């Protein structure tokens, strides 16, 4: 059972606090993605799990055992580095078998495992080559193969796809998912790309500034972000935010964005938002919930009109940018329903999907 437990984990570099007291429980065979912007402490956390970085405070448990004092070589962990870190003086076969040879695994067993990993990764014909004779994608596979043959209790990935070109990245992403389905192991995957995190992980951990902002399934992160940061980080294109006033109306509450535009809050949310009435708030809505005029089933929708500033066709949809007071807002529209730039267009806002953020706490209420 390879569970991972981080308890009140701290890391200081001199005066800089890279990780500030995080707690996290990772289940056996779970795929967890640590995601966040550069410098948020995600890689440091991963390196502490690997034992490559000393812990300033707190505790790390792997499989129920505290490993604070255990050197990396005894943690039974495999890691795929961002820059692959292959051994340049060894062939692919030697690269993959290195860890097994160090651990004095019998030759036949090494052969079997390397062959098996090579089959999984489709690199059987590359085994005799040197790393410098491989392309970027092939090196990436070898780096993963090196981890797979070890059959470790925990797999760590440190932004493994960020050195690949866009097309290959998407391909390898699918492949990593397939591999995890075949080779059941606990995985901790660090990335700054929220799409990678969403597509791969069972659970996502969003980190910012050394602390965990939110932990949850990809769906939870998307539908119910708990902080302003998570709401802005998850989702592509990212959520629209606009300062607003929450005002009381005859029928309930409304979000007043500009002097002309007020959007009624759905009735089922009135009670939830009541305490924030008459306050300055931040209104959040994802582009996919601002569309061309259309009918939504439950009717909690508001129609607005605005002049189109910029169009970004994406094929299946077209992103439409328009001004809402001082803010520019992005909407996702049917390509056929789009007006020309400079012309007026009608939009429908699906208020069931709205978010309201209290700027004093940055929490989604």
């Amino acid at each position, binding site marked *: 059972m390879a569970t991972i437990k981080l308890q009140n984990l701290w890391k200081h570099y001199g005066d800089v606090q890279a990780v500030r007291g995080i707690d996290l429980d990772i289940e056996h065979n779970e795929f967890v993605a640590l995601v966040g912007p550069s410098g948020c402490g995600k890689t440091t956390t991963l390196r502490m799990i690997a034992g*490559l970085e000393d812990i300033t405070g707190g505790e790390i448990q792997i499989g129920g055992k505290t490993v604070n004092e255990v050197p990396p070589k005894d943690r039974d962990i495999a*890691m795929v*580095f961002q820059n692959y870190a*292959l*051994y340049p003086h060894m062939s692919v076969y030697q690269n993959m078998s*290195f860890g097994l040879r*160090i651990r004095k695994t019998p030759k036949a067993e090494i052969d079997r495992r390397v062959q098996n990993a090579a089959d999984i990764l489709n690199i059987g014909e590359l085994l005799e080559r040197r790393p410098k004779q491989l392309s970027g994608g092939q090196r990436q596979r070898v780096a993963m193969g090196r981890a797979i043959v070890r059959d470790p209790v925990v797999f760590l990935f440190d932004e493994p796809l960020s050195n690949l070109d866009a097309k290959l990245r998407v391909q390898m992403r699918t492949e990593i998912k397939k591999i995890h389905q075949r080779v059941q192991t606990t995985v901790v995957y660090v990335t700054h790309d929220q799409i990678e995190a969403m597509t791969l992980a069972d659970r996502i951990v969003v980190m910012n500034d050394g602390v965990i902002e939110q932990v949850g399934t990809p769906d939870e992160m998307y539908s119910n972000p708990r902080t302003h940061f998570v709401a802005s980080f998850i989702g592509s294109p990212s959520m629209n935010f606009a300062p607003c006033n929450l005002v009381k109306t005859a029928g309930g509450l409304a979000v007043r964005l500009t002097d002309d535009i007020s959007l009624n809050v759905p009735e089922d949310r009135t009670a939830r938002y009541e305490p924030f009435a008459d306050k300055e708030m931040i209104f959040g809505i994802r582009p996919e919930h601002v569309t061309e005029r259309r009918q939504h089933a439950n009717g909690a929708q508001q129609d607005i009109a605005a002049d189109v500033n910029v169009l970004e066709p994406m094929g299946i949809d077209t992103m439409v940018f328009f001004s809402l007071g001082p803010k520019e807002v992005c909407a996702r529209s049917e390509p056929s329903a789009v007006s020309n730039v400079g012309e007026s267009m009608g939009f429908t806002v699906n208020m069931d999907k709205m978010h309201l953020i209290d700027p004093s706490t940055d929490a989604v209420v």
Partner: protein
Amino acid sequence: MSSNDMTAMTTSSGELLAENKVPFWRLRKAFANYVALVPYLAFALFPFYIIAITSIKSKQEINNLGESPFWATGIAVENFTYLATNTSFFEHWMVNTLIVTTVSTIISVSVGILAAYALARLKFRGVELFGVAVFITYLVPQTLLFLPLINVVNAIDDVIPIRDTYWSLILTYPTFLIPFVTWLLMGYFRTIPVEVEECAYLDGCSRLSALFRVVLPMAIPGIICAILFSYTLSWNEFLYALVFIQDEHAKTLSVGVFTELIRGDIYFWGSLMAACLLGTLPIVILYGFLMDYYTSGLTQGAIK
């Protein structure tokens, strides 16, 4: 012919231009590049030319002021036979130099590798200060250092007789070789991606086994470079060898040639030059063999 026609291209004016024909401006540029090297080559190679040409002249020809010093009229081997029969050139000096150089290089490079790795990779209090100290040690001139070293050699000589043997040199050469090798390799180790080493730890290596199995194989060009330089430095060393050794049979090449082929104000020019020529050969051969390693990068393919 037909293949030529197929690869031929047509210029704007319609004439055929063979694809592999080098344009004139490119030839002119290449010529200019080589011309620029001529002054350098003249300075660098002229002394060697004089050494080589003088070593194959007979004594009469050298002393004949009527002959030009810049070329020889024939090939004489008398200078080389003189070295073999009248001096200890081959039987002692060459052998001593080989032993001293090889052993002190092995000692210096082994100690230097460990020191450089520690200074480049380990984090401990004062690591940077230590690195600078190594460099400063290297800067202390030999002409000052030999004075205290005489005391050291004498003190050791009281217990184990090392004075007037090549052991005194094997012991003292590393005092300037180790700081040099350490400094050189420190820079090289820093260029080796640390992730590769970390990967070795996760694969089950201790620090020492990661050093030998992963870091050193990647550092081979740097180590070759260290070997070449410390070999050359100790091969050419003159001062310590002059001070610590008086016995003719224990001398190294540089001192032996100087003390035995110059007697008072008499210079045995022919044999001196022959000795110089033979003395540089092993170094030239060594460079020839190791140059490929020295220039090739071995970390290619490790990252990205």
